[in-house]
């Protein structure tokens, strides 16, 4: 009996905490559809309005804060990088894990060595490089430095190593080319690792703030995160539109998380090993 009571209390407390944890999101979302005067005075809106969303898409344009464009900028940059990381690591990891040649171990150790350095150490020298290459204030500045990643290569190499050599031999006997082996044998068998790599890359790039803040000054090329930050700095009084902008910026990450939550949980339990 006492045990049962304890269980009920435990569940009650955890559900309450879960509600507290999503409260900020609920508040944010409700604020974005409330009349402006109710944002700080009521929790539930007396009427639902889309004026903040309209404002951020039309008026912001006139204030030279093109939100819709920024949304597509973010989407373009993020999808390009994610696709490239997934594509390049699926191919290169094959060389590192399944082909025997002198030096492959050294390269793999070098990749682990690279991961020891925190990204912020290179951020200013990388900025210098981008300027020297003439890429300052271009889309390339946000894309090119992230096209391949040591972490993704490491993850995928580890995953490829668990695939038995027999599969590859069998495919070779059937006359399969290297690319066929990679995309018809290796990739399907490492689907879960590959989706973790893709997911974390997507979220990392979509949410990247410091780097695009440094390399992009043109409002038309800014990703959503940077544009929203400038909007917050210059038009902080427009709380409603800011909330709408925040909802728009958060939505893709939350959606992707909800859709791929299984892969997400796998990725988290992997980070512990």
């Amino acid at each position: 009996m006492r045990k049962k009571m304890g269980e009920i209390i435990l569940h009650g407390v955890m559900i309450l905490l879960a509600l507290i944890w999503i409260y900020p999101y609920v508040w944010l979302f409700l604020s974005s559809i409330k009349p402006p005067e109710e944002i700080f005075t009521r929790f539930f809106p007396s009427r639902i309005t889309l004026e903040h969303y309209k404002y951020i898409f039309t008026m912001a344009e006139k204030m030279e804060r093109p939100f819709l464009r920024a949304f597509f900028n973010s989407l373009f940059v993020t999808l390009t990088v994610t696709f490239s990381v997934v594509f390049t690591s699926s191919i290169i990891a094959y060389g590192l894990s399944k082909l025997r040649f002198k030096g492959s171990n050294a390269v793999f150790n070098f990749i682990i060595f690279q991961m020891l350095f925190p990204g912020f150490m290179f951020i200013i020298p990388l900025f210098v490089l981008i300027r020297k290459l003439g890429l300052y204030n271009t889309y390339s500045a946000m894309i090119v430095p992230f096209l391949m990643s040591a972490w993704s290569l490491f993850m995928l190499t580890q995953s490829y190593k668990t695939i038995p050599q027999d599969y590859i031999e069998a495919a070779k006997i059937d006359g399969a080319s290297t690319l066929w082996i990679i995309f018809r044998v290796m990739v399907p068998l490492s689907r879960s690792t590959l989706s973790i790599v893709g997911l974390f890359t997507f979220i990392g790039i979509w949410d990247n703030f410091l780097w695009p803040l440094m390399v992009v000054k043109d409002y038309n090329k800014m990703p959503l995160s940077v544009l929203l930050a400038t909007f917050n700095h210059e038009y902080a009084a427009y709380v409603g539109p800011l909330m709408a902008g925040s909802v728009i910026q958060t939505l893709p990450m939350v959606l992707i998380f909800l859709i791929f939550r299984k892969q997400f949980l796998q990725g988290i339990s992997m980070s512990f090993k």
Partner: protein
Amino acid sequence: MSLKRREARLGWGLVSIYLLYTAIFWGYPFVWMLILAFSRWKFVGSPKFVGLQNFFRIFEDKIFWRVFLNTMNFLSYFIPMVFIASILFAIALNRMKYFKTFVTLSFLVAYVSSGVAYSIMFQRIFSETGPINRFLYNAFGITIPWFTDPQLAMLTIAIMVTWKFVGYYGLILYSGLQAIPKSIFEAAELDGATSWVKFWKITLPLLNPAIVTVLILAVNLSFGIFTEPYMITGGGPMNRTLTFMLYMYNTAFQRINPSYATTIAIMTALINFSIVIFIRKVIEKEVTVV
């Protein structure tokens, strides 16, 4: 023989794509990092070699040590808060039978919130007229200057970051808990161990690898904070929320001193490393489950 050579050639071919790329976007910046740290340069002209001067300057830089104290301050709030909260979360989740998915998802949605948007959101939630102060005023007749008080601002940021990361760290600890064989607890129960003893003598020691992972992640995170102070406080009040990253950014782009900014980044990494090594030395234990 020729087959072996073909394999080697293909291998090098694939790997060299990465090596070439990394030489440009990792190797070249690496060299520039060293050049910048030992020279004086203002984005134009050629760098002037100054030896260790940038490093000496750090030791006399009052703001740098303010930033150091701020980060220690942040750690002293953040580590206990996030650690206790996530271990409780993991234990509770381990005992739950129903609504597990709902609880996990609610905590993890915080983890995927976007840096800029969640800073804007918390800035308003903790603002003078925001919902938290309104609740406190209605319940206790007080309001708290969350971001404007020099003592409180860092704590408030630590609360925000804790909100974001409890779910993530909690799940790492949770998967550690799940890896502990049930038979050990059963054996201890037969020997008459209380749940308190079981927690201290079995759960905590066997959870060691997960605990070390969480602590290292949390320390690394603390040294990389940028978005929250940049968006909300700008480093104020009285430089109390100035972080290493914010100081580095300001030094490079407002004071136009990329060489000193790089030195700051290197020093930050060194301090970060030493704390991580300290944690591994003191806390990390070999765990063997028989």
